């Protein structure tokens, strides 16, 4: 009788947790498949979440977030492993450093839809915030991943989920390969011009099968793990590194004017009504450990945000229908900015986050009425 996926998964976790200390220290996340194969262990599906760290001890932060759930742990040169238990079944959650400084991958063999992973992604990460913060991918990231994979074979999408921005409804599309040829990633994406893509399940011929998620996550199902690392992990890493760079050093400095702001670009008219602006306000004010203070509304909206996790603070302005301006205060950590921008971006359908100079002179026409 063939081993079940759960047996397969448990065997891999057991192997990883008891790996020789020196071997574990030397083991890079991209070499997992090769090393497991050497020991006669096959790779199960692996769930990845890429996070940025505002701490020199990211494993300690994750350990803190996990709290009493941990039954065993191993700190390694690459990060560390936490063993935990749910419904009498053990599983291992690993923190692995990436090729970029302060960008790490949280990896486990449990499926992304499983409560065991949800506990990691929701409870543990909430406890590790703001020292560890996930990031979100935008449409370009999805397209770039598909483009890069298409150099290695025909990319076909079998399932795509999205959120329709205008009415917040969900959109799910699946393609059976028996009936018609599945679309390429570009073809599938073309159907989502007014949507926020949340997940894409795709394959590269017979070489690789993966699941990509907006929350800087991916699942390796089967196939060429090297290709998964080379294209997908690299893209997750670079997206996180770009976000890290954008959010680093955003604090104000005394006696210096604000010369740059963070701009979240949204779909046209995304904030054109008071209902949508109220939604923004309520979205932010319901982030855990966050409180807002409204200074002005109707219709230009100005509120300030205080993050009680580490005291970070920022001003938020909505003065145009398709953008949110974020002006970090004197204390604004990367982790706090990441979690706040991610929640806003997720609620309102962020197209992009960018910086904008605010010290340019303004033409007269902007001041004249009519």
């Amino acid at each position: 009788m063939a081993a079940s996926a759960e047996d397969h998964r448990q065997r891999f976790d057991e192997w990883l947790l008891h790996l020789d200390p020196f071997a574990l220290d030397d083991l890079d996340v991209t070499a997992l498949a090769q090393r497991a194969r050497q020991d006669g262990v096959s790779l199960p599906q692996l769930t990845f979440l890429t996070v940025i760290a505002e701490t020199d001890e990211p494993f300690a932060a994750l350990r803190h977030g996990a709290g009493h759930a941990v039954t065993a742990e191993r700190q390694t040169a690459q990060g560390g492993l936490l063993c935990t238990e749910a419904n009498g079944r053990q599983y291992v959650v690993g923190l692995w450093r990436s090729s970029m400084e302060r960008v790490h991958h949280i990896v486990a063999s449990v499926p992304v839809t499983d409560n065991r992973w949800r506990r990691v992604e929701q409870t543990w990460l909430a406890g590790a915030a703001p020292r560890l913060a996930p990031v979100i991918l935008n449409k370009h990231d999805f397209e770039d991943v598909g483009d890069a994979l298409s150099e290695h074979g025909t990319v076909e999408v079998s399932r795509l989920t999205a959120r329709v921005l205008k009415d917040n409804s969900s959109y799910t599309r699946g393609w059976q390969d028996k009936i018609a040829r599945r679309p390429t990633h570009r073809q599938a994406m073309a159907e989502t011009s007014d949507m926020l893509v949340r997940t894409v399940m795709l394959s590269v011929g017979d070489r690789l099968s993966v699941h990509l998620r907006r929350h800087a996550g991916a699942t390796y199902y089967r196939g060429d793990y090297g290709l998964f690392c080379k294209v997908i992990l690299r893209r997750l890493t670079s997206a996180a590194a770009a976000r890290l760079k954008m959010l680093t050093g955003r604090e104000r400095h005394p006696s210096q004017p604000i010369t740059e702001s963070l701009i979240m670009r949204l779909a046209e008219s995304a904030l054109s009504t008071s209902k949508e602006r109220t939604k923004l306000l309520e979205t932010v004010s319901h982030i855990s450990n966050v409180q807002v203070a409204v200074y002005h509304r109707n219709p230009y909206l100005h509120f300030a945000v205080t993050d009680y996790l580490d005291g970070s603070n920022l001003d938020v302005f909505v003065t145009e229908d398709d953008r949110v301006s974020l002006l970090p205060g004197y204390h604004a950590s990367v982790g706090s900015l990441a979690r706040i921008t991610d929640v806003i971006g997720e609620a309102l359908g962020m197209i992009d986050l960018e910086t904008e100079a605010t010290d340019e002179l303004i033409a007269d026409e902007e001041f004249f009425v009519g």
Partner: protein
Amino acid sequence: MAGADEHRRLYRLYDRRVDLVSVAEVWFTRSKALAPYTAHFERFPRLVHPIDGNAATPDFTVLFNDDTALVGELAHIAPGTSAVERLAGQIGRYETLRAVPWGPSDASGLQPLSEVCGVDVVVFAPVSGINQAIDELAEMIADPEHPYSPEHPPMLLSYSYDADDGSYTFQRPARGRNEHTRDHERQEGLGRWLKRGHDELRGLPKHFQTIKASARFMNDEPPQLYIATVLWNFVLPDIAASRDIELPANLTITEQELVERLRDGYGYAASIDLVRRALDFLRVARLGEPAVDGWRVYYRNLGRVSRDISEALLHEHYSKANKTRRIRLAAPAEPVADDAEAAEAQRADDVRAEAIEIGDASLFEEFDSVEEVGGQPSSAGADEPTAE
């Protein structure tokens, strides 16, 4: 709850005034037309009048490259009162200023001054009552017996907020002696600019948002709720972060420290008295109390009371329930030996707290029976007065 509503009204009015000064700052420092002629815009001028030796605190001053200046005042002119008479007395003094700031205050609070050879005065006033004010000022100027006799009359601009597009509109009513500013030898100035704009100008939040976030205040003293909110929103968490203190925390601060934070952070020279009143607001709200070494502020998330900080502060300020229980610390206090009475009180408070249903007070709701639960009872006695 008239008291609470008055706090809210003053909060909104002050924020409006912060916006208006920020609009002026944009005009003079960021517009292609005027910025090249501006040497310094000061939103917190603290001057001593050269003739009477008394303080002069207009709402903003602009020093131009040609050694002239513009002094701005935000006025609320209530028709049928002596407000215009008082305004005349005020702006009459501004016109005779001999120097205005050319840079921000230094660490000691002193503003470097630059002598000027001519001063234009601009008054921003709400639309209602401005025509009457212009007419009354014209009558004063025409009256040789009246002490108000400016070398050049002030320019009054009405302001209004357009809720359809979220912008401010400024208009110069063409009546009485409401002439354009002289603009002296400059090729471009507010008066000439206004003429080109057919006597109307706009103030867009997208232009002034960075200025507003940078400065937060204008030259008038903020109302208690406004300053308390800024402290809770920005200053107190900044202090905790700079000391590497984890939140929630029982923060020990001094009034002087807050004065310096407000000055260094936002350029606003808050008085000790203002800071003390803000802290007293927190004291009544049971979120702080005087201590031997300054003040102890029990800094924590007030989100269970209201998602909005100013509303949560207001709620705590007016809450009758929190006046009858022991003050709640934000973090555990140092252990106190032989404090059985305190421990018993803590247990009683905990039981009481558990009995209170926690609601999720939505934004801007009126006060209800929502009570914050959590925190640690202080060893201090429950002897606070009821706020109302």
